[in-house]
């Protein structure tokens, strides 16, 4: 195991509330590629958004790597058409001697050349998901995979706030937050913004914007965004084609091109192009829980 001591930078004594943030091991730094982490409340459509966004990047000619960070490892199955084994599953087969692995053992080619990895994780309630994400990034770096990639997308688990939740923040340039036009997912988004803000003191991560998913209207989202300084980057309607695409194990780009489907494809392509062109980081500021209730709670 590599032992690293935290670097304490005198100008940056701002870890907040007396805590000392352990800094990222520089050997795990991802250079070159644009790194995006997709966050949001459980079940809100993070994997759907990630996979379609990966597909969109690949349609724009980018070399894309999608890393599923959820122990239930279903992030990439619409890309690969299968439940691929996780990095942890594969490490187990070689008794955690990572040196024995080859890239093709844990990276699986998906739709339009998108490279797919499922980090996997410990059984629910045990272990540390953050460790697994860290090991995965280390492995990808050691195999020089990230040096030959343009875009890396972390699809983060939504159910819990723990190491597994925080680890991708250390690698990402931008976070996209997936939400619906309802109180619960906006409430979760607020907490995610707070977490990103805490991390951004030491890491380059910034809030990229909001993906409004599965929503006809945007009134609630807009109200919150105005208060918290966020912005909608993409708006996906509550369309049955998206649900059906998951049942068919494919991305939206492989669906029958009806006008609905084409409009959704264009929305993902627009989002991807915007991320390539450069997103202005948002000066996001989370609201206090009470403030959200007052803002959205009872109307």
């Amino acid at each position, binding site marked *: 195991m*590599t032992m690293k*001591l935290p670097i304490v930078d005198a100008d940056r004594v701002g870890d907040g509330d007396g805590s000392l943030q352990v800094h990222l091991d520089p*050997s795990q730094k991802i250079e070159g590629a644009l790194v995006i982490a997709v966050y949001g409340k459980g079940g809100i459509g993070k994997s759907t958004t990630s996979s379609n966004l990966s597909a969109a990047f690949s349609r724009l000619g980018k070399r894309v790597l999608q890393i599923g960070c959820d122990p239930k490892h279903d992030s990439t199955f619409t890309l690969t058409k299968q439940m691929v084994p996780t990095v942890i599953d594969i490490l187990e087969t070689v008794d955690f001697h990572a*040196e024995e692995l080859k890239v093709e053992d844990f990276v699986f080619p998906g739709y339009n050349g998108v490279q797919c990895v499922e980090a996997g994780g410990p059984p629910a309630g045990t272990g540390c998901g953050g460790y697994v994400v860290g090991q995965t990034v280390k492995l990808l770096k050691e195999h*020089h995979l990230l040096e030959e990639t343009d875009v890396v997308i972390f699809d983060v688990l939504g159910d819990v706030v723990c190491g597994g939740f925080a680890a991708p923040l250390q690698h990402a340039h931008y976070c996209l937050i997936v939400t619906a036009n309802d109180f619960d997912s906006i409430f979760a988004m607020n907490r995610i913004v707070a977490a990103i803000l805490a991390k951004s003191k030491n890491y380059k991560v910034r809030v990229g914007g909001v993906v409004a998913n599965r929503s006809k209207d945007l009134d609630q989202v807009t109200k919150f965004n105005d208060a918290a300084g966020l912005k909608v980057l993409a708006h996906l309607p509550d369309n049955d084609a998206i649900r059906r695409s998951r049942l068919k194990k494919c991305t939206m780009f492989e669906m029958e091109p009806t006008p609905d489907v084409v409009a959704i494809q264009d929305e993902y392509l627009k989002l991807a192009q915007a991320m390539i062109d450069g997103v202005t980081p948002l000066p996001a500021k989370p609201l206090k829980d009470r403030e959200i209730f007052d803002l959205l709670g009872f109307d």
Partner: protein
Amino acid sequence: MQLTLWTYEGPPHVGAMRIATSMRDVHYVLHAPQGDTYADLLFTMIERQDARPPVTYTTFQARDLGGDTANLVTTAVRDAFERFKPKALLVGESCTAELIQDQPGSLAQGMGIPVPVVPLELPAYSKKENWGAAETLYHLVKALLADRVPKPGTPRPARPEGRRPRANLLGPTVLGFRCRDDVREVTQLLGQLGIDVHVVAPLGASPDDVVRIPEADFNVDLYPEVSRTTAGWLQRAFGMPYTKTIPMGTGATRDFIAEVAQLAGVDAAPVLGRERPGVAGLASSQSRAPWYQRSVDSTYLTGKRVFIFADATHAIAAARIAAQEMGFTVVGLGTYSREFAREVREAARQYGVEALITDDYLEVEAAIAAATPELVLGTQMERHIAKRLGVACAVISVPIHVQDVPARYSPVYGFEGANVLFDTWVHPLVMGLEEHLLQMFREDFEFHDGAVPSHLAAVAPSAPAAGGAVSAPAGEAEGVRTLASVPQLQVTVAMPAVTDPAAAAAPAASAGPVPPVWTPEGEQELRKIPFFVRGKAKRNTEAYAAQHGIARIGVDTLYDAKAHFGR
């Protein structure tokens, strides 16, 4: 990580030193304490280099740790650049310096040094020497070629009409195994096919040579432990194919000729036409080895039990030679190169043994003792192990001792390499033990169980090993040792013959089925068998007894087994 007295590989920064020392006009600034400068001696003593490695150590001391060690780095980088005027600078840290987190690579990159500065991040606590060498070569080559990589998808331009095909030889380094001579041999081999060697890297290459790598048609991945990462990248970035065959042994050399001829688009027939696989006679190959292996004087080689443990490249190649060319039986195959564990497991399956993948020499020693080989092919450590066990040994891989860097031309690759391997593997074996000679001299006073091979006299046990409470009769020491092959095993192997079988069987009970025990009469009869085949007879009889559920081996069992296996 595990504490140990000795390791097969050094830390990864030693791998980086091997790359820097192999090359010209490359300098390596190593953020390391004074003590780490010991690594210089590997190059000047073992490899007998005539100059110190091109490495500048920052040599921080305990008192520096309270101050600004980062400043030491920038000073060392600037001084090294001004003094040595390298064309490329490698900057990294040793295991000790990794802990103080100065990021010397990033520091040096920000200094405005007017030559390529390649930062090396080599995690010392999870990676080892060969990985460090491979990573260093990869990053150096990539940095020097960064602005020459064509756009992805650009087709590789065809070889101009009239220009001879060109190959680069990738991977030879100082402190590798016979790299200097292998390069000459492989260059000569490619020359026979009309292929020019364009760049040899890292051995003898300067950064200017590295830049010329893409001008060749393909790469020869000569030592995959060091060069596979780079060869793979050159294939992805420049569309340059690389060879997969290691030309070690006659058969593999013939396969290599076919492979490079195909990659170069030349006809292999003029060279391969002179090779006649399977034909006995001096004229059947450019190498003398195939005929020597088949000559009547080599009959005693057939079926010799050989245990192989080395880096993956040499281990796999040696196993093929042993099994298919020498006629040996491979009783063990393993490597410390975890990066290539898969290939070694694959090879081991072919020979019906389980691969031993470890970097713990004690585990290797135990496996060798258990396999009771007659010849060990390994590294410097296996030489020690074999000496302790009184078994013949030849070194086929790094880590090496000074005697493995001979002054004479002594390759292990190519046709001449096959000759060298034949000699070096056969000489340690006791020659002249052909059956007819044994029959003739059986009663000779100098020729008895207790006599030791003259070249192993130094390790002849004059008395049973300290731990062995067995009272082996005088003059039986050699015989018992042949039986068990290892003094330490006398206790477990020989005890059943002289003590109460029930008591002897007890310690073994936990390790699965109880092995059959020898009755005193059976043991007596076994001793009548000439010692050089006694080990085999004992193993066969025990296997026969185990198969037939016989718990006690008497005279009858011995002869039943003989009849059974003699059919």
